[in-house]
């Protein structure tokens, strides 16, 4: 187990090193840069050279990369070109928003996917199965940003109400915080549950065909016990896998929902940073997301053994 963990950490670090190089290099290949965006109005080429030197962008690529990486290893992600603030501070400010949205959406997604998927598999062709499949098709085929826009439009017209603007931390006001997050989390949760529901259903359908399940039925166990006690746990491995990828998607990929509900999360930070060609911010945010992906995948891998004791780590 320890050897496995060590291997995974080493592999994870190698992946992050590769990611850092990609993040550092690719954003520089995108046409246009921060300085041109800033100085285009002045039109002064001499200013451009001076500004490049000021930001250290006149140094060779390798030297810039090593300097940045050394900073990262010391816990310093650099200073944003755009906001002139430490990138780490900006990311830490955006993180609670994305984290809360992701956790709430995931919880809701699972609260819908697990019962609907399980019941759908256990009573295939029944009313609950059809309801679950309908929810799934709807969630997959209707764009969530469209639903979000409609919800905002009609709650404002019919009820003269929209969620509070901007992020309000739960410590400042739990009620207002929930008022703010419930709708976006519900929209994202329903959207995500569509995929999870199908996966839960199909995984369970596979497992329900297994011999040991037939044996459990033959022993005369109650249906609920067979489903939740024997079959469900064995169907969890693929579900855990998709949970991991959904969480990392939510953490940095819910940009449109963040925009519509005026929540300033990591996704919005990344998009704005790319727009401004804010190299330190883009590099920092991508690396940060990479760390989260590596960590979540490690946790999910470890969780496999908890779910299925047959899995051994070597």
């Amino acid at each position, binding site marked *: 187990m320890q050897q496995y963990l060590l291997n995974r950490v080493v592999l994870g670090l190698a992946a992050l090193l590769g990611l850092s190089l990609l993040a550092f290099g690719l954003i520089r290949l995108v046409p246009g840069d*921060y300085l041109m*965006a800033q*100085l*285009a109005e002045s039109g002064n080429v001499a200013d451009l050279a001076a500004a490049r030197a000021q930001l250290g962008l006149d140094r060779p690529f390798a030297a810039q990369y090593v300097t940045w990486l050394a900073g990262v290893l010391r816990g310093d992600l650099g200073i944003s070109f*755009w*906001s002139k603030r430490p990138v780490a501070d900006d990311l830490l400010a955006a993180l609670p928003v994305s984290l809360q949205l992701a956790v709430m959406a995931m919880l809701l997604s699972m609260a819908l996917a697990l019962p609907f998927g399980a019941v759908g598999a256990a009573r295939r062709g029944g009313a609950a199965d059809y309801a679950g499949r309908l929810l799934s098709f709807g969630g997959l085929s209707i764009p969530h940003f469209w639903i979000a826009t409609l919800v905002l439009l009609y709650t404002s017209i019919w009820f003269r109400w929209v969620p509070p603007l*901007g992020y309000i931390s739960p410590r400042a006001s739990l009620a207002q915080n929930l008022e703010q997050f419930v709708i976006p989390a519900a929209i994202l949760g329903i959207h995500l549950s569509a995929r999870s529901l199908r996966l839960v259903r199909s995984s369970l359908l596979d497992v329900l065909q297994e011999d040991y399940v037939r044996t459990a039925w033959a022993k005369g166990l109650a249906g609920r016990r067979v489903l939740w006690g024997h079959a469900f746990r064995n169907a969890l491995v693929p579900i855990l896998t998709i949970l991991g990828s959904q969480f990392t998607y939510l953490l940095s990929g819910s940009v449109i929902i963040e925009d519509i509900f005026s929540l300033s999360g990591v996704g919005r930070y990344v998009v704005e940073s790319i727009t401004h060609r804010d190299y330190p911010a883009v590099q920092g945010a991508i690396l940060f997301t990479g760390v989260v992906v590596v960590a979540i995948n490690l946790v999910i891998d470890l969780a496999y053994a908890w779910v299925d004791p047959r899995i051994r780590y070597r």
Partner: protein
Amino acid sequence: MKAVWKMHALGVLCATVVLAAGFLAPAGSAPAETSRRGGILNATFSSDPAHLDPHRGTTAQNFVPLVYNGLVRFKTGTEVRVDEYVIEPDLAERWEQPNPTTYVFRLRRGVRFHNVPPVGGRELTSDDVIWSLERMLAEDPENIKRDLFSVIKSYEAVDKYTVRIILKEPFAPFLDNLATVFASIVPRAEIDYKRVAVGSGPFMLDSFTRGVRYVYKRHPQYYESGRPALDEIVIHILRDFATRAAALRAGRVDVVDLLPFGQAQPIIREGGLQSEKYQGIFSVHARLNVSRPPLDNEKVRQAMSVALNRQAMAIALGGGEGVVNGPVPTGLGKWAVDWRHLPFFQRDVAKAKALLREAGFPNGVTVEAVGGISPDNRRIILEAMKAQMAQVGITLNFRLVDTATVQRVRFQKDFMILADNFTLSSDPDSYLFLEYHSKSSGNVGNYADPEVDRFLEAQRREVDPAKRLALVHQASMLVARRGWILTTGDPIYVSLAHPYVKGFRHSNINQYLPLKNVWVDR
């Protein structure tokens, strides 16, 4: 502001006239109403500033006019029209101009900075003005508005309350430039102006969370008696239009400004809100790069100009109501020439074809254009141009790219046609000299014509307003004839507010400065 201006569609041709009449109508607020102290106003803006320094970059310009004062300012409030730009005293209670190149500003006494460290509410003096001038003229790559003040030859503090500024040459737009946020007077102190905004303005920036909100509190020692009325202003960062509209309906925000007519119309129809229409000064256009054939041929450019149906484009831009702009936008009032009198501005397909033939292109030409993907007005004008030019034999291919790429293209002059809008200014010099003078850094289309240069130089040196107006009009006619920049139009904009919001009227130059006049009567 009880009354709501309502301009119904009276036909495209008279849209401009109708609009002008609308602006001449009595202001909406009843004079008998007196402002009531207290209350909070919620407003919105679409993006964060990069930082808060008014002398570096341009993104702070919408966030700090409430915090700082200038020596002079543009008059705001319901008593001035949106298309008039009246300079009034601000920190300088008066000024003299003993000769065309010398200005002597007499500062108000007893003006206090905000009572926060390290300034601690001390009195503003000429030393702070000198410090601010040093910052405005600093050789710093980020000081991209330095050109506004580069005409200054020298400056000195004559005494504690008097500042003398001497110009290199007479410069008509000088006071207008001093009224911009880029000439804000900041305190001489050890401050990181990018992170901290401490001024003498009507509001103090109390707190802000990037991407979320900016909270301003009333400056209790503000020099104007009875101002500001509000205790607090909160500016919410809402990027999405639908979110802004929903927040307005739900009362989460009290005022939303600068909405194109087409977007505001459905909300106006719902009722319950006061609205006001006005002309903006963005003026979307297509810059032609005359170093790229066939755009080096004046007749080709003129053919492109007469191929355009500018009225249709303006209406498309506004989503129902728009205004055609010449070289100087119609929103600049008297400085603009009526577009119907400008050469090569009326659509004429036969004339366009004839011009192409005369230019040696009887089979038409193919040109390439580029524009930013945001805001959407670039796409609108490029699509319209493509369709309209196709009818005269000009094939226009265009691509939309992101903002940073547009800036690169502009900076490196790496384009044939660039869809763009002008830098906002109250003075025609910005739309003329900056864009067309052969030596201007803003001339990205490689325009060079000694005759045009002479007019452009003359209008900025002319201090007699009537003579300058004539020169500006002549210069506008001349550059329209050259066909260098194909100006199109602007939407009619709308500001929307709840009925309890009093005293608000948009300003084309400082979008949030008018909030200092606002009070709420809930």
